[in-house]
């Protein structure tokens, strides 16, 4: 560093002021150095670990059959399986029930068990006069005799709009659960009332992963 020892008398800043200014700068510079030192002290070693997860979803589906052997997917109301009632359901008489069988199973390849809800719905004029019951039978087939021997799942529910939740479970693929539907006309069934369809929806919800 060089400094001039002689200055013109007309210099703007006095020597004292310049000295002070230099001291201030020196102090500031010292402060900066301290700041860097502090930042270095705060820095620490860093290391990372990585862990990865792999995820896959399962498959799940149910299919139904009206004869106990040929199963197919009936995924929408418009493509519902037509139940075949033993006695003509188009010619109902008061308190004379009709019976029809339906079977449902987990589709091959499903990876989870299922719990099944059943919902009935009908807008037909005859529907308020109809109630239905469902039992589970050991073999496919549905008559008054097999109905009586079955395990009750739904009893005397409305066909207009009703839901029975979690009525049975499906715990193995392609192992059918055989159902027997009984539809009973009320004693007050009017003669010649306009008929129409009743649609039962079997809604399966996946539960635990199959072994």
């Amino acid at each position, binding site marked *: 560093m060089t400094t001039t020892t002689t200055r013109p008398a007309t210099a703007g800043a006095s020597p004292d002021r310049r000295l002070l200014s230099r001291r201030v700068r020196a102090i500031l510079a010292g402060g900066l150095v301290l700041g860097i030192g502090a930042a270095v002290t705060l820095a620490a070693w860093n290391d990372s670990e990585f*862990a*990865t997860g792999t995820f896959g979803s399962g498959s799940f589906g149910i299919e139904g059959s009206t004869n106990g052997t040929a199963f197919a997917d009936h995924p929408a109301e418009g493509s519902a399986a037509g139940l075949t009632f033993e006695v003509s359901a188009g010619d109902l008489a008061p308190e004379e029930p009709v019976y029809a069988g339906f079977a449902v199973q987990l589709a091959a390849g499903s990876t989870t068990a299922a719990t099944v809800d059943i919902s009935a719905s009908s807008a037909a004029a005859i529907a308020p006069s109809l109630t239905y019951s469902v039992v589970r039978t050991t073999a496919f087939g549905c008559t008054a005799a097999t109905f009586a021997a079955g395990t009750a799942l739904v009893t005397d529910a409305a066909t207009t709009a009703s839901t029975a939740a979690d009525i049975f479970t499906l715990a193995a693929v392609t192992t059918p659960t055989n159902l027997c539907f009984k539809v009973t006309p009320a004693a007050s069934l009017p003669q010649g009332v306009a008929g129409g369809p009743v649609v039962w929806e079997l809604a399966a919800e996946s539960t635990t992963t199959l072994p």
Partner: protein
Amino acid sequence: MLAGALVLGIGGSLTMAAWTDDEYASAAFASSRFVVESRTASSAWTSHEEGSPAALAFSATAMSPSTSYFAHVDVRTTAATTVGGTVALEKTSSAAGPLLPALEYRVVPISATVTCAAAAFAGQPYVAISLTSVPSASAALLASSASTARFCFEVRIKSGSSGDTYQGTTAAVTWQFAATSSS
């Protein structure tokens, strides 16, 4: 006159010479070590870098909505590490697959003696898997493998996810844990 004074000055300094002795102080310097390693239920203790991440043992190959899958990753310092520090879930470093939008998860730091299961997550909210943010989860680490931090993950398919869209699909996610030494 001036030369005479100079000679006198030299004479004076010689008279002032005396015994001398020196002292020396020395110090050795070495940097500390801070390296972390991790393991999962299916991988042993080792350093798992981004190219060779530890596999979380979810066994989640056939997931269905609302069914939770649990897996843990343990983190500790190596035996040669000389300083302690902290470890925190830093980010989701990669996430891909058609199943990804249907997944949600949560993560908590737990004691390494505790099994990673539903009980570990008291009231924790689920969050979507996101590359931009992760839940806050951190734990302290002692030097030389003296403590183990366990991070428990729970992953599930969101309730109500459409089966038609997501059935039979897959996703893979990698999380990064960043460890910082305390000094």
